[in-house]
């Protein structure tokens, strides 16, 4: 073993909820050498930006009897009939997924939700409370009972800090500000990763018995996004390039309330607490699209409704691309207590105080339902038949279990990352402790990656990375957005090919080895070009409309042909080769129905 190689029992890439949960569980189950590497400090992970809540049917509150769907909530009196159940959570999630979620996985997530919530609480997570001291809950879109467990509107922040503290407590080793460059898989066995210490620019091979990706999503491929600048889908592209397939990539969630022109998340809790959406005529337009649920319809439906209002000329703002979010009637006290962060964001970035004024918002790219296919234990699958990639795990937004199917419900992502991060940690501990050996690595993968970095740095190039990135975001937004059609998707594919050619001439301005974020931006762009092609190709293939994937040329759901997951395999320099995987459905309990709200 040379000085370019580091050995751990388990290496986890990404330190958000999924990664930190897995690390904590593996370490406390006795695995000695657990390491997490993250391109940002763990507490900078994007899980911390989640706001509104985490789902679990705790039955701590209920609507005041007789008050209607928008009426006030109260703590559930002792001995009163519960209003929520795990079964209801399961059904809401299945319906939210437009029947594309795997029902065995959804069942596991909703059942374990209750336990995960209490575990967070016992670890010291600071939740908001009911008067009698239970975890507070609010309404959320697509959920038929108030089951969003929250800490004001910084729920992700408190969960992230809590689980990171636990990982430290259990002696997890963190490689903070290390950037993963490559995944080493040979003969369907994962052998480690190659990563760069950003501080020094040195490249290492990290060998491990088990490797996990918890690298999050890719919202940065779009112009308007709620996602952090770090969310460039690195893990998605690295896995794909290493021969791992990607599942259901056509399903991209647009959140209905991103801050106008910024895309910054204005929590769904705004509507959960009773906020309205208004068009330029100050009309609650959701009446036309989802009269039963109004603003609390699922995100795909609300974002489409907003986009229709905008496209039909009823948008607001200088370019007509905005919608009003009205919180004024909630009153000062409620906004200060429950939505303080949202208020601060509105004041800081658009100069509007939601207590006094309407807030301009617009749909914003938010969440990837698809990505790396796994089983319910985080085990990554090599193909549509479910063959495992030995020693390789994934959880969180980068994984596709699939619990969200074609559309995720709000508050189910923090839950997904927690439940399946925890399960993956347990599965890796069992794998390592049941005699897994350190698999050998052929050749010198670190050196291969060093050469790749050198060629990028040495490229005299005429193209600025930023200019290519802007053009990618533009075509993804225009052609792979809320409304899609064959012509636009073909245009996107052509554009991406042209952008890939331009990337060959990309120039990295910073030539130094120390903390070279200019080099990282080039690598991130290359990753975005890689998976964006898969999004466009799978969206073109799926000629139906389901959940967040809406084809104006095929506006109906087509269960006879498309009740399947799309599995995209890398196919040399050609576009992806597609295969299809059946959806796990309990035909007796949850057969597909028409999805109406």
């Amino acid at each position, binding site marked *: 073993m040379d000085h370019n190689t580091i050995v751990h029992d388990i290496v986890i890439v990404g330190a958000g909820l999924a990664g930190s949960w897995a690390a904590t569980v593996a370490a406390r189950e006795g695995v000695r050498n657990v390491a997490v590497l993250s391109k*940002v*400090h763990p*507490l*900078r*992970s*994007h899980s*911390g*930006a989640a706001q509104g809540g985490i789902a679990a049917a*705790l039955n701590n509150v209920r609507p005041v009897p007789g008050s209607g769907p928008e009426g006030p909530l109260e703590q559930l009196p*002792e001995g009163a009939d519960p209003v929520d159940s795990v079964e209801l959570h399961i059904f809401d999630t299945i319906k939210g997924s437009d029947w594309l979620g795997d029902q065995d996985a959804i069942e596991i997530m909703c059942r374990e939700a209750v336990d995960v919530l*209490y575990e967070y*609480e*016992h*670890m*010291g997570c*600071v939740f*908001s*409370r*009911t*008067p*009698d*001291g*239970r*975890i507070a809950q609010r309404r959320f879109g697509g959920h038929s009972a108030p089951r969003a467990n929250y800490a004001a509107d*910084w729920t992700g*922040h408190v969960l992230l*800090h809590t689980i990171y*503290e*636990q990982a*430290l*407590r259990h002696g997890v080793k963190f490689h903070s500000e290390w950037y993963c460059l490559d995944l080493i898989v040979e003969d369907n066995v994962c052998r480690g990763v190659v990563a760069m210490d950003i*501080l020094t620019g040195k490249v290492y091979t990290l060998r491990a018995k088990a490797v996990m990706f918890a690298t999050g999503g890719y919202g940065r491929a779009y112009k308007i996004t709620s996602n*952090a*600048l*770090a969310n460039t889908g690195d893990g998605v592209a690295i896995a794909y390039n290493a021969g791992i397939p990607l599942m259901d990539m056509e399903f991209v969630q647009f959140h209905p309330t991103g801050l106008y*022109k*910024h895309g*910054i*998340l204005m929590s769904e809790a705004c509507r959960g607490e009773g906020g309205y959406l208004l068009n330029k005529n100050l009309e609650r337009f959701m009446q036309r699209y989802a009269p039963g649920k109004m603003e609390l319809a699922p995100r795909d439906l609300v974002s489409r409704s907003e986009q229709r209002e905008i496209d039909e000329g009823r948008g607001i703002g200088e370019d007509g691309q905005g919608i009003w979010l009205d919180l004024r009637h909630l009153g000062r006290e409620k906004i200060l207590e429950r939505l303080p*962060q949202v208020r*601060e*964001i509105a004041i*800081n*970035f*658009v100069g509007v105080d939601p207590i006094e004024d309407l807030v301009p918002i617009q749909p914003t790219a938010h969440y990837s339902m698809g990505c790396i296919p796994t089983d319910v234990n985080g085990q990554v699958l090599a193909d549509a038949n479910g063959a495992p990639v030995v020693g390789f795990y994934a959880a969180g937004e980068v994984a596709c279990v699939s619990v969200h199917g074609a559309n995720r419900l709000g508050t189910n992502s923090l839950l997904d990352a927690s439940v399946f991060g925890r399960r993956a940690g347990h599965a890796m501990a069992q794998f390592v402790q049941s005699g897994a050996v350190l698999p050998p690595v052929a050749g010198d993968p670190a050196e291969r990656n060093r050469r790749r970095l050198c060629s990028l740095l040495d490229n005299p190039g005429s193209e*600025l*990375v*930023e200019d290519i990135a802007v053009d990618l975001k533009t075509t993804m937004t225009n052609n792979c957005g809320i409304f899609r059609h064959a012509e636009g998707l073909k245009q996107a594919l052509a554009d991406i090919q042209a952008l890939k050619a331009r990337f060959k001439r990309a120039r*990295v*301005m*910073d*030539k*130094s*080895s*120390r*903390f*070279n*974020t*200019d080099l990282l*931006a080039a690598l991130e762009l290359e990753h975005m070009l890689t998976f964006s092609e898969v999004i466009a190709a799978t969206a073109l293939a799926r000629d139906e409309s389901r959940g967040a994937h809406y084809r104006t040329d095929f506006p109906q759901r087509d269960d006879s042909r498309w009740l399947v997951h799309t599995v995209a395999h890398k196919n040399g320099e050609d576009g992806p080769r597609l295969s299809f995987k059946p959806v796990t459905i309990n035909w007796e309990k949850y057969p597909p129905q028409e999805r109406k709200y």
Partner: protein
Amino acid sequence: MSNNGAYPIVTVRIQRFNPDTDKKPYLQEFQVELKPGTTVLDALHEIKAHQDGSVTFRRSCRHAICGSCAMNVNGKNELVCKAPLKERLDRKGRVTIRPLPYLPIVKDLVVDRSSFWEQYQRVKPWLVPPENIPEKEFRMSPEEVAALRNAETCIMCGACYSSCQIIALTKEYIGPHALLKAFMRVMDPRDAIPGERLADLAGGDGVYRCRTIFNCIDACPKGLNPTEAIETLRKLAQKRQAFEAARAERQKRLSEPIPSP
């Protein structure tokens, strides 16, 4: 850079330093357009993307929750993602951006926060729960939760730490960020070791090092008050045994509903 005259041009002065090649830090001037709503972070991005890719800084969420982008702007520590460029310009239309002071510089605006994180870890930021864990949640009153609000929203950006005059003198001091975290654990009715924590915090590197200069309050981009938390910890440390006894008493009822007022 291009300018069609639509927006005024302003000057951004950035402190540059690469320890591998530079003898000492120096200021470099860049020009950017002042578009409506431009933040200091937007200006840094524009410079990095189109003028000089080697300008180096940390950033991620761009809405003041991840804590990456604390820097020193015109002599004051803040998160550049929520700093409006227009409001930071002097009369000559200039803004000056330096790394957080009193910390080793990694490169340009990136500092080495090692001592910051060591102190964070030193105060055992995790909760130590009592032995009897209930089947459901521990019960906490809304008032007990509200008492933690001053600490729970801390994003660990380091703005307070690097504005602290005691930290400027010695990295042995625990620092306002870690003391705020310790305050959060001490005040949490679920924590079983407040006495042990207070004993440690009352030691030589802890709460008595604070000279109540209040820089941390001015620097905090989340409007938190570490000084007040430190004052509270001092008071509690003086009556540590009574506080421990009260906590033990409280923990007997942690599984019971909070009585209505």
